[in-house]
């Protein structure tokens, strides 16, 4: 069981050694006209994470809470959330580090919702596919299955864990459904830097677009939110440098 939560301890117990925290958790299921917040009271230990608390809530208080998690150490990218209005990975965010007894938990913003805290990442993956980074991993195949040709190219050793926190933090994604977004643009920059046999020209053409690399307004919220040091904003600016350079070269080439 996760560290810090004692399954035997009931939240209505009159005494305990944990710090009492009030969690407000966003709830919305298919068919609800609007979302609302449910409140849960828990006692937490010094190393209890937000994810630990949410799992305890689901286990002991409300089994209808929908949330996703997997690795518990910020490498699968599954448990991204907005905790007290900041984009974080819930599994490595300690409740007591938040510095307040009132903790608000919401799903990541700007994405479709499956229910409660679980976001539909379909749109996110579609953007990555547009750059040529389809989401198939070698490890998902059983040893006995037939691997399609080219599958090895999809093993990626990249910092991006595809958590979607950058899209949640970006002010442009908040209003603009057509903006490609920081994650896909950072993937584009990686793809151009390491094409692996792909002609990167099509990617450069793709992102050299008003709704591609040029839509960014340098807020750098994506870079601040990223749990994995991808620096999407830096990647977007690098893409602009490439795009501007390519355009300058094509102008010069036309003149000579």
């Amino acid at each position, binding site marked *: 069981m996760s560290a810090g939560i004692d399954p035997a301890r009931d939240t209505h117990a009159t005494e305990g050694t944990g710090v009492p925290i009030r969690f407000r958790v966003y709830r919305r299921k298919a068919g609800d006209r609007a979302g609302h917040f449910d409140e849960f009271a828990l006692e937490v230990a010094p190393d209890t994470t937000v994810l630990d608390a949410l799992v305890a809530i689901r286990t002991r208080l409300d089994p209808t809470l929908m949330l996703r998690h997997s690795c518990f150490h910020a490498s699968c990218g599954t448990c991204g959330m907005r905790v007290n209005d900041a984009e974080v990975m819930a599994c490595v965010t300690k409740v007591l580090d938040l510095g307040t007894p009132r903790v608000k938990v919401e799903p990541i913003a*700007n994405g*479709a919702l499956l229910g409660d805290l679980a976001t539909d990442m379909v749109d996110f993956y579609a953007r990555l596919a547009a750059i040529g980074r389809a989401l198939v991993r070698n490890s998902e195949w059983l040893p006995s299955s037939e691997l399609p040709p080219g599958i090895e190219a999809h093993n990626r050793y990249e910092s991006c864990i595809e958590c979607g926190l950058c899209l949640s933090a970006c*002010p442009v994604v908040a209003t603009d459904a057509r903006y490609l977004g920081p994650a896909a643009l950072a993937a584009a920059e990686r793809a151009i830097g390491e094409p692996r046999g792909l002609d990167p020209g099509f990617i450069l053409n793709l992102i050299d677009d008003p709704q591609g690399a040029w839509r960014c307004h340098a807020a750098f919220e994506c870079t601040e939110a990223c749990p994995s040091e991808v620096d999407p904003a830096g990647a977007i*600016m690098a893409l602009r440098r490439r795009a501007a350079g390519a355009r300058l070269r094509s102008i010069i080439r036309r003149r000579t």
Partner: protein
Amino acid sequence: MSEQSVSPEPIDPGSSWASRRRRGIAGWGDPRGRRLGGWAFILNRLTGLGVLLYLSFHLVVLSLLARGPSAWDGFVSLAGSPIFLCFDVVLIFGLLFHGLNGIRVTLVGFGLVVDRQRAMLVALMVIGAIALVVAALHIFAAG
């Protein structure tokens, strides 16, 4: 398993029942959870729109010049009042912030100085603050 292909099937991004939970303008203006660059973004936007609004008033007021000295000089006597001078200081703040942050956005936007963009922002704001104080003193002392 063997029917699974490498590239994904065409996806309809609007198919999820609660299609978009976009934050909308709140994603621009909500101060909670905002970090330094996010503040620069929203202030750049507000000062830009504010100065544009001022510009439209300014262009309309300038039409007084076409009506000759009496019309224009009447306005000049109004423009020395304290409330006007306060607006002037606000305008100068807007111009300074937008211009100096604009330097950062331009340099960074061409892929230059990206790794030290936070430090550059802070430095430019310090310069702006000093310039604002100097301008405000001049406005209220001379005006």
